């Protein structure tokens, strides 16, 4: 049976892509952010995942408002990045695992998650950059299953619903009959707001509480409504919903293997965590 060996949660700011392309990892502005990742790569080298289930939000590449899913899941054998409009350099394509995707879909629909299934899809920076941070050579040693959460257009799924999706995803992964090692990633956040007079809003206090809750009190954020999460973390800070899904795939008790927090990259407070089931 498959085993979830841990979860990685990280920010996914588009500007990271530019910094990677320009080789700015040791530039003083970028160093505090990129320095969070060597430890993640050591951990990955140790836990040797076969598959990454990556939970993120699409920023208007694969989905538009004519067909805007609450939850979508990839069911393809390959996924490509594409032009998102600002010409950030494209990332190498990914190998999917459509058999595993359909296993997850069967399980999740049976548990009353009303998924959109995508036999063909492009993946945006929220998918590609976390992968490139984990494997800078972009020679992916894993197959991937993308899971997309609507953080773009209210009503968003509640934090509680996202946490439950993670729990169901864990049951589905654990029921996969192949003896494979799975890492779940959740990308986005932490506090940031791109739009409005409140642009530039960052809330270090909330981010610290949220990151602490990821270790000790995983359902903590479920007490907040979407509006409250926007107030606390900013209009794009709600991308932390992707972290909630990833956290839901782990048991109540976890060990924090690693974390990093830095203000700011672009307009964003960046967070990074590696959690292992105990």
């Amino acid at each position, binding site marked *: 049976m498959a085993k979830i060996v841990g979860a990685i949660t990280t920010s996914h700011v588009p500007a990271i892509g530019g910094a990677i392309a320009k080789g700015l990892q040791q530039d003083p502005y970028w160093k505090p952010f990129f320095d969070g990742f060597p430890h993640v790569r050591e951990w990955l080298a140790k836990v040797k995942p076969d598959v990454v289930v990556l939970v993120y939000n699409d920023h*208007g590449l694969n989905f538009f*408002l004519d067909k805007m899913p609450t939850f979508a899941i990839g069911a393809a054998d390959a996924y490509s990045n594409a032009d998102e409009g600002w010409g950030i350099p494209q990332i190498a394509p990914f190998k999917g695992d459509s058999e595993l995707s359909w296993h997850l879909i069967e399980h999740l629909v049976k548990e009353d998650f009303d998924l959109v299934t995508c036999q063909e899809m492009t993946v945006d920076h929220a998918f590609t950059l976390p992968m490139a941070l984990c494997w800078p050579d972009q020679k992916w040693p894993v197959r991937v299953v993308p899971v997309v959460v609507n953080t773009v257009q209210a009503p968003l799924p509640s934090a509680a619903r996202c946490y439950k999706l993670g729990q169901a995803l864990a049951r589905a992964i654990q029921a996969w009959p192949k003896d494979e090692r799975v890492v779940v990633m959740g990308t986005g956040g932490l506090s940031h707001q791109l739009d*409005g007079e409140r642009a530039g809003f960052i809330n270090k206090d909330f981010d610290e509480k949220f990151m602490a809750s990821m270790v000790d009190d995983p359902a903590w954020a479920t007490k907040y409504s979407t509006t409250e999460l926007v*107030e606390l973390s900013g209009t794009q800070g709600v991308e932390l919903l992707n972290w909630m899904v990833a956290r839901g795939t782990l048991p109540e008790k976890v060990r924090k293997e690693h974390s990093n927090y830095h203000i700011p990259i*672009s307009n964003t407070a960046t967070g990074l965590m590696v959690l292992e089931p105990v």
Partner: protein
Amino acid sequence: MSATSARQPVPGTTIFDGEQARKGYALNKMCYSFNDAANRKAFVADEDGYCAKYGLNAQQREAIKNRNVLQLIEAGGNAYYLAKFAGIFGLDMQDIGAQQTGLTKEQFKAKLLAARG
């Protein structure tokens, strides 16, 4: 409390909900088209024609003309789609942040740094 403030209770913030989505559909659809380099070029070559093709209303057309992010949000624009419009002019998120907050880019960067506490 008005219906609007009940719906949009966070100061300086417009949550992109159904009401915004209804208002901004044509504008967001145009911005979504800017994923494609050929469309970005077509917009630059004939801004009026391109906006007309997507059926922008007067408020949206004016906001696009002014490259004014607050006006674009007021007209129903969504941050993620508007980012593709901003990309045409090589604006980054800190340019956009500065414009919306009435700060210089340096001031806006300082504001972000101040969040370190």
